């Protein structure tokens, strides 16, 4: 049985086929998420997904769970409210590099600072896929996009490092070439009671590939593989040696108090009861 078939019960079959291009990394990332979810022994019915806008943010729409497809960049704001309203839900956020780090950059660092118990899968294809190949805040310096016809002038954000520095209790980066590590990291993120950020470096053959003379997904995967450096090795390398490399591994994995637990603690102190769940449906509060 193929991977895809195995996971069919988790998909909204009535929405298939999906919109992703052939060779896009999003399919492999969906499979990695579902494998991690099973490994973590999560109750799929208790998962609620939130996403912003972009190809990557379309993923929750194909999964058979409650899903909130929100506005561009704002997924983490909606997720913060959802998780605060019902801390029993396992809230998972799918987002892209543009969604999370450009328009949503402020929400990203603040959600990390709060260490709110969300699992964020950030699909970093170094480009704006959905709008047709404009550069993003993670596009490598010198790479090409429709809005960088002479090469990108800016230096990219290192997202996993940024989020770790902002206060997340779990942060990691992998690529679609290291699916097994990715699965283990997503599993760790799902189990971590705090803000968990898993950046997945992936290929967008349609736009990043075409604009940067990497015509196929296979060619892109080969470059990704060749440029990958494990964090343990990277720690011993100079900045110059690390230029253009993708450092993979964990950037934060610490114990830290969590936002909605703290809110609940105050509620118990002040009212003698836990934060209310489903209160909108009640007249007697």
């Amino acid at each position: 049985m193929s991977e895809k078939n195995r996971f069919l019960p988790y998909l909204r079959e009535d929405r298939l086929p999906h919109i992703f291009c052939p060779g896009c990394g999003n399919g492999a990332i969906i499979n990695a998420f579902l494998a991690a979810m099973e490994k973590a022994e999560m109750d799929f019915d208790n998962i609620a997904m939130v996403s912003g806008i972009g190809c990557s943010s379309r993923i929750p729409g194909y999964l058979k769970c409650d899903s909130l497809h929100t506005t561009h960049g704002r997924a983490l704001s909606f997720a913060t409210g959802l998780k605060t309203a019902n801390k029993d839900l396992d809230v998972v956020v799918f987002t892209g590099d543009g969604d999370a780090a450009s328009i949503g950059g402020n929400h990203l660092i603040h959600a990390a600072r709060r260490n709110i118990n969300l699992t964020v899968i950030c699909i970093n294809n170094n480009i704006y896929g959905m709008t047709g190949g404009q550069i993003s805040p993670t596009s490598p310096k010198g790479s090409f996009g429709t809005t960088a016809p002479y090469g990108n002038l800016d230096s990219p954000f290192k997202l996993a490092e940024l989020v770790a520095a902002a206060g997340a209790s779990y942060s990691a980066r992998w690529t679609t070439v290291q699916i097994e590590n990715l699965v283990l990291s997503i599993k760790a993120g799902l189990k971590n009671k705090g803000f968990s950020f898993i950046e997945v470096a992936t290929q967008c053959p349609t736009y990043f590939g075409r604009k940067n003379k990497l015509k196929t997904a296979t060619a892109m995967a080969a470059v990704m593989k060749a440029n990958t450096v494990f964090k343990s090795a990277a720690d011993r390398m100079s900045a110059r040696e690390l230029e253009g490399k993708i450092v993979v591994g964990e950037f934060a994995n610490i114990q830290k108090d969590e936002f909605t637990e703290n809110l609940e603690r105050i509620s118990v102190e002040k009212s003698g009861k836990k934060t209310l769940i489903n209160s909108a449906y009640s007249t007697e509060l």
Partner: protein
Amino acid sequence: MAEEFFIQGNEACAKGAIAAGCRFFAGYPITPSTEVAETLARELPKVGGSFVQMEDEIASAGAIIGGSWGGTKSMTATSGPGISLMQENIGYAFMTETPIVIVDVQRGSPSTAQPTMASQSDMMQARWGSHGDYEPIALSPSSVQEFFDFTIKAFNLAEEYRCPVLVMADEVIGHMREKIVVDDNIEVVARKKPEKTDDYLPFENIENGTTPMPAFGDGFNIHVTGLTHDERGYPDTNTPETHHNLIKRICDKVLNNKDKICSVKSEGCDDADIIIVSYGAPVRSAVEAANRARANNQKVGYVKIDTPWPFPDEQLKEITKNASDVLVVEMNLGQMYYEVDRVLGKDTNVHLMGMIGGLLPTPDEILDEINKIGGN
């Protein structure tokens, strides 16, 4: 039984929210609305609720939409600069039919202008602020008691029609202190859970209405998107009929219930030649001006609009049908004036008394305008 309190408008708003069942507030500090957030930061944990100070107003609007889908009545409060930032997510709430309450304590605008002075300059933004076609519900309180009552009403309307409701207050009402009476048995509309049937459609095209809304985690596994969606909630962005049916339903559920939603109060209009029309804080001066004019044997009445949106066309037409002139008093350079003119302009002379600068128009200033029109 009833209890009395002598409190500030913004505190009354917070109190009303809790009475209405609000258990989640997300916001960002801004004068002159901040006391709403401060009061709820203190009071919500005492009733099992949660308060979050977000990183900005965009996040605040997003968070309360998330909170609402999490099964909690949710609210934010802000002023001009903040309501500008919230607009995209407010549109998302209309499109996804998410009940939320947004309180705007209006201040001098545009830009940061006059943080501690009053205005009513966000009225058109309440109507058209987000891109697209939608029909907002907005309430304007004229007293501290009404700020309490209308906040409760806003939550009830939000649940009844599954949509955002705006409470368009102003700095005068937000910061003044008055006595309010809080009844024991306040009417609170609870959200209805849908039935779990095989053919349940979260965005069903039902006649004149609002489909019951499940909470995330209830097992309905629904998809909610701001893209044009079919009755299942699935994106269908290229079929003209899907978009037409969705948007028409979202608009019609408010428009077809205007007689239930709209609220207008009036006095002395049957035989009046001149009628003052206002809403929010200026109503206080309008009432006094009309009373003084009457005492002076001038045929003057007044209309107080509780619900600027949807605009009460029919009620206004009926109440003012015998008057030759209508004077719209508002704290901007003309916003609701254009609505009044649209509705009455054909048969009535509609005048504007638009005041900016931050001070409430006084009864004398209104009387001067009436005398200019010719109130004999």
